[in-house]
């Protein structure tokens, strides 16, 4: 039990620290690196929650895929100049206050309603590995969104291509 607890706090710390660093680093590349840290933390949490498949997806897709994309763009748009400029918008203090307020409110609301989620239930009897389970659900229950997601990705690809290409 305590191992879980320890790792939870560890990953939580990594996640939050990564997040904080992401939004505070001056250099966009550093931000991206911090984001990777945070994503890995989240991946760890996935693992803790017995979502192995998702852990893999998180590492491969997110850390491997999306972050590369980000880094590409960072290189492409040449953020050196940007890095020398002011990093925070003029409204940051207001934003901070607001966000903290909203966060506090959400947490308060959660705490009032937390009775619903106090303890994790015992795991269901395993009828196979996590991947099988996910696959089963994905293709039985969520076949439609799955197909739809492909269309979404197609649209995204087409879109980013259109946007990014220089002439026609």
């Amino acid at each position, binding site marked *: 039990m305590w191992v879980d607890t320890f790792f939870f706090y560890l990953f939580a710390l990594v996640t939050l620290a990564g997040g904080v660093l992401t939004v505070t680093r001056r250099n966009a590349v550093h931000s991206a690196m911090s984001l990777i840290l945070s994503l890995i933390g989240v991946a760890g949490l996935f693992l803790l929650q017995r979502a192995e498949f998702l852990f893999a997806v998180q590492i491969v897709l997110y850390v491997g895929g999306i972050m590369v994309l980000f880094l590409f763009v960072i290189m492409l748009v040449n953020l050196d100049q940007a890095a020398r400029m002011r990093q925070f918008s003029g409204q940051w203090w207001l934003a901070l206050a607001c*966000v903290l307020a*909203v966060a506090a409110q959400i947490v308060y609301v959660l705490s009032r309603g937390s009775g619903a989620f106090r303890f994790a239930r015992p795991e269901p009897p395993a009828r196979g590995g996590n991947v099988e389970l996910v696959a089963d659900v994905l293709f039985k229950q969520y076949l439609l969104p799955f197909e739809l997601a492909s269309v979404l990705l197609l649209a995204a690809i087409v879109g980013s291509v259109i946007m990014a290409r220089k002439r026609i």
Partner: protein
Amino acid sequence: MKFLELVWLIPLIPLAGAALMLVLGRLLDPQPPSEVAAAPGVAPAASGHGVAHRIGQHGHSAARSVISLLCPGTVFVSLLLSLGAVWELAALPGRTYEVVKFTWVAGLPFFTQSGALARFTADWGFLLDPLSSVMILVVTGVGFLIHVYSVGYMGHEGGYYRFFGYLNLFVFFMLMLVLANNYLLMFVGWEGVGLCSYLLIGFYFHKKSAADAGKKAFVMNRVGDAGFILGMLLMFSVFGSVRFREVNEALASGRFAAETAGLGVLSAIALLLFLGATGKSAQFPLYTWLPDAMEGPTPVSALIHAATMVTAGVYMVARSHLLFRLTPEASTVVAVIGAFTAILAASIALVQNDIKRVLAYSTVSQLGYMFMACGVGAYWVAIFHLYTHAFFKALLFLGSGSVIHALGGEQDMRRMGGLKDKIPVTYRTMVVGALAISGIPGFAGFFSKDEILWQIYSSPHGSKVIYLVALVTAGMTAFYMWRLIFMTFHGSPRTDPQTLAHVHESPPVMTVPLVALAVGSALAGWIGVPKLWAFLPESFRAFEHWLAPTLSAPALRASEHAHEAATEWLLMGVSVAVALAGIGLARHLYLARPERVQALRQAAGPLYTVLANKWYVDEIYDAVFVNGLGKGGGSALARFDNRIVDGGVNGAGWMTRLTSTLSIWWDTWIVDGAVRLLSFLVKAASFPVRVLHTGSVQAYALVIVLGAAVLFTWYLVR
């Protein structure tokens, strides 16, 4: 019965003439294009000649002759029809003939005060009874003579067709007024004559004063009319009808007790009607329009503002005599107002120099007499005076018109004098008129005026105070009338020689009516001689007998002969003496000792030089110069008229303007202002809302988060 059945035609024939004139008259009487009346300096070079002088040399075209024949002709036909109808009426048992042609206002049901369901209706119905028969004869008879006179008088004027059109229209409305069988239809005539008066006063509409006078007349009349309307409404609500017959039946039924104490609903009706009458008949306080109305052509003054229209109020009160008899308080008001007006107007007439204004005030004064008679319950006498007055006042006006005509438009008596030989016919007929109005025995005015005085004195509703007032007024009347005669016809000519050289007697078309009216003024009174003159047969008292079916009131007759014959003789003597004294004083001041006038001017002049307003100085100077200190009261009254009464009217006008200005201000700034404010606020609010959209995507995101925060806060606060 043939003529009686045609009674509805009596008004219609003049209407036909009017319609013809107003629609086609322009074709018959073309106006040269150059006759545009333009203000000085505005007139185009081509037009050149003067403004007010629309006297052209094209006067007697063949077409004009048609008009000249046609318009008086229609009135003449009406006169004949009237005579026929009256002749037949005399033979009818009740001397009443009523015919309804069709329903006019056919309104819906309503509830009277007593809860009965009535209908708001009025007919096109005609009532010929002795009262209206007198009136139609006066209207058509005098009207015809004046029409004839106008042919000569207006012969050189532009707008000839228009003039006769209006005149015929007037006759139509006046006949409607007197022939109507209900108040509402009477009101048609009532308003109609007011309209014609307006049109005819403003006949010389290029003169601002004329147009102003017309408007003043109309608006003042309207004030009275509002009273009349409310009176009718009250009548509807009390009796459920405004038909004379039904109203009178209701009144006679005994359902309404005489309102001897306090003011009841009948008094209210009576007073409201009387308010109408004061407007139409130029009684205090609504009389100031009448002197101004002299801006109109003289025949108009004679017909409308002397003989007929202004007497409509008297006719109406006489028509409502049952009502007034039941409301002694209201009758007292009538008498007092009449007396006050009579003496007020007479005193003003003392100082006037405009020949027509003298006559105008005189008319107001004489109308006051008639109301006094009505007020004391002597309705037939009022009508009798109305009838005699029609003759001599029309005569005097026409005569003055003849004078003015002869002098080429001059109206100021100070620039007349010595005309008696130049225009002898006019002179002689006017003297007859003056004798009549002064109440010299034998002439028409004597009989009616003396009877009024006697009735005021003797009637149970009469009063000695009013009698005294009336007597003084009689003296003043004699004075100013003879002052007029002396200043105009006697003494040395004060006219400038050039004009004097052209003075000539009017053509026969004008003098014949004068003579006819003079005959009337002399003889018309002999059908109403006093009962005192028992030596004369009853046929000399035909007037009262003729009117008796309409105006009799048996209940009130008993006390009539309570006074001794000696008193009556004495009073008759007093009144004649007063009249003679007035004439004598006038002769003394204006004929025998004109230099006394000069002396008085010297003596009293400084008193008035302090007045800043020159016009008032002149007025009062003249008053002192002419009348001496003894008549100072008259000038004070003149001032009262000019300052207070007119001032009141002007003040009301000023107040009205002020209110109007305030209203506009209110409209612009408050009512509209609220709207503008709203629209301004909408626009103003637009900016902060827009400014929120700074273009910064993060600000937008912040607003989203803020929105979320508000959602949560709302939830948590609840």
